[in-house]
């Protein structure tokens, strides 16, 4: 029993870091653009398909596909920002308008993937040698371990970018105060477009990790990832990039241990209960600072 629990906890950390990545990219987008990316999960699934086809057609291993996917998805985000997001800021009620547009985008992407890739679940044919590592009685597939390392590296790189580089600091400044940054003379539009690109690039990488760690993916599961992302950012605090890491790990742990004792459905339900409880009790998130208004 204890070993099962321990196994659950280890899985929880691996899965939690993936969830953290979903949350971080959602949060960067929300923090800077005030846009809730309802289509985030679909972009993640698209990333998983990208890994699949990079391997099937180009013979690229998922690790090598990562920089490529990051650049392609980043460019896609940059373009989408000018097509969709920017025009919304002129609307009467930008927040609701953006929610609706992203909701529409998620429907479009889901349907397009269904048309292009068909409904069957696919899985990535990717194993390492040796396939498992044993720590005592805990089994850890090496692909998961690799995923864990990559997730830590990406999160670390992102933290470095946000806290140590100039564009990253500018991003955080916008999250804290949009009005002030315009006075200082930062080109908000360009930075917003870059942010959306960064967010989607991260979604693409997350998708590759998902394809490595989870057994399969299909066009239908995008929404599940979006919801997981919502849970994570609400736990960690909306618009709070690093809070999402803690939120992701917390949720991953909760979900995986619940999976050990109950079922996948209960684990999912637990996530929703957590989400609703936090939103009602601590709307700023477990780690966020309570806002004045």
């Amino acid at each position, binding site marked *: 029993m204890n070993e099962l629990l321990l196994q659950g906890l280890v899985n929880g950390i691996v899965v939690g870091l993936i969830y953290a990545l979903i949350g971080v990219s959602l949060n960067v987008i929300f923090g800077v653009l005030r846009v809730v990316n309802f289509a985030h999960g679909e972009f993640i699934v698209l990333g998983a398909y990208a890994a699949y086809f990079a391997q099937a057609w180009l013979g690229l291993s998922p690790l090598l596909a990562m920089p490529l996917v990051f650049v392609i998805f980043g460019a896609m985000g940059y373009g989408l920002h000018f097509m969709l997001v920017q025009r919304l800021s002129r609307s009467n009620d930008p927040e609701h308008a953006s929610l609706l547009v992203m909701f529409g985008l998620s429907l479009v992407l889901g349907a397009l993937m269904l048309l292009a890739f068909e409904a069957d679940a696919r899985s990535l044919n990717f194993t390492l040698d040796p396939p498992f590592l044993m720590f005592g009685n805990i089994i850890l597939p090496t692909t998961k371990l690799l995923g864990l390392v990559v997730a830590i590296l990406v999160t670390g790189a992102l933290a470095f970018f946000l806290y140590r580089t100039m564009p990253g600091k500018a991003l955080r400044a916008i999250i804290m105060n949009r009005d002030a940054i315009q006075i200082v003379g930062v080109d908000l539009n360009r930075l917003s477009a870059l942010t959306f690109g960064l967010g989607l690039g991260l979604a693409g990488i997350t998708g590759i990790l998902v394809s490595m760690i989870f057994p399969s993916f299909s066009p239908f599961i995008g929404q599940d990832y979006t919801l997981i992302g919502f849970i994570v950012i609400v736990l960690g605090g909306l618009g709070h990039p690093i809070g999402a890491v803690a939120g992701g790990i917390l949720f991953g742990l909760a979900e995986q241990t619940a999976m050990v004792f109950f079922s996948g459905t209960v684990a999912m339900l637990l996530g*929703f209960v957590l989400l609703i409880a936090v939103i009602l009790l601590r709307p700023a998130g477990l780690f966020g600072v309570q806002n004045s208004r």
Partner: protein
Amino acid sequence: MTDEVKEVRDDEVVPAPASQGNIEKSNHIRSLIWGAVVAVIIAVFLPAPLFASNLSFLFYMMLWLTMAMSFNFVAGMAGYMPFGYVAFYGVGAYAMSVLYKTFGMPIPIALAGSAAAGILVGLLVAPTLRLKGVYFGIVSLALAMAMKLVISLMPRDITGGSLGLILSSANDPLAAYYAMFLVMMGALAAGTWLSMSRLGTALRAIRDDSEAAEVVGVNVVATRLKAWIMATMFPALVGGVEAWYTNAIDLDSSFNLLVTAKSIVYAMAGGLGFLVGPIVGASALYGIDQLIWRNFPTLNLLILGVVIIALMLLLPRGIVGAFAQRFSRFRRFIP
């Protein structure tokens, strides 16, 4: 400048009752237009089963009219975007089916159970009404998913598990048709009452600026709760009647996100916040949607998504809203 002052002075001499007459006149015209719309709806749907060969087309048209209208109660009048709107529809469908099939209750009582279940769920999630924009949208969607999971965890002999429930003994499409007609009339009546009453005024103030409304004495939470309860009862009833009409339910179709998506699209295309908006939107798009659905079933979601994006970018206030903006003189006559 002197002209303007003079004009104002002129007005000052006009006693207040004249203004009242004026308001009443525009109110009168607005009521007439609304009355005409309702009359047309009754004239189309009430005798239709006598002539129409395709009952299903009309049944689903009423269904979407009702869904869009009640979506408008929360989105257009109270300013919420419930992305999990389908939850109420699904709960209603399940309440009706379980009461009828598992507990052997007569259909009218089972349908009353649908409405009660919708209101109950609405009350349960009422604490989320104090959340603002983004948070509310997220939680609402999560609640819909949670509701589906909860039903899937219930014992198989009550809810039928993943196979759903078949209600073949209840088969009576014509009766279900008129039940839907009654539900639609109920939604029309509720909408009429909302727009004419002081509750409606409070709701529109909240939609325009909830904080300013609060500051001039509107109890925002209590007011929203009333609109919310109305907006949760109708989709639950609709879900119940639809289950009766098709005689079969399952988790995936009862909690299909398409239900939310279509309610949003129809209501928005017409224009949120106007009583006639959802009616115009549903009438304009329903036929097109049916054509697409019949000819390219796989493209349905894709096209819905594209329509939502295009509407938000090109016609954010909908058909009626755009008209009102363009011809602002006539705005006060639009119900």
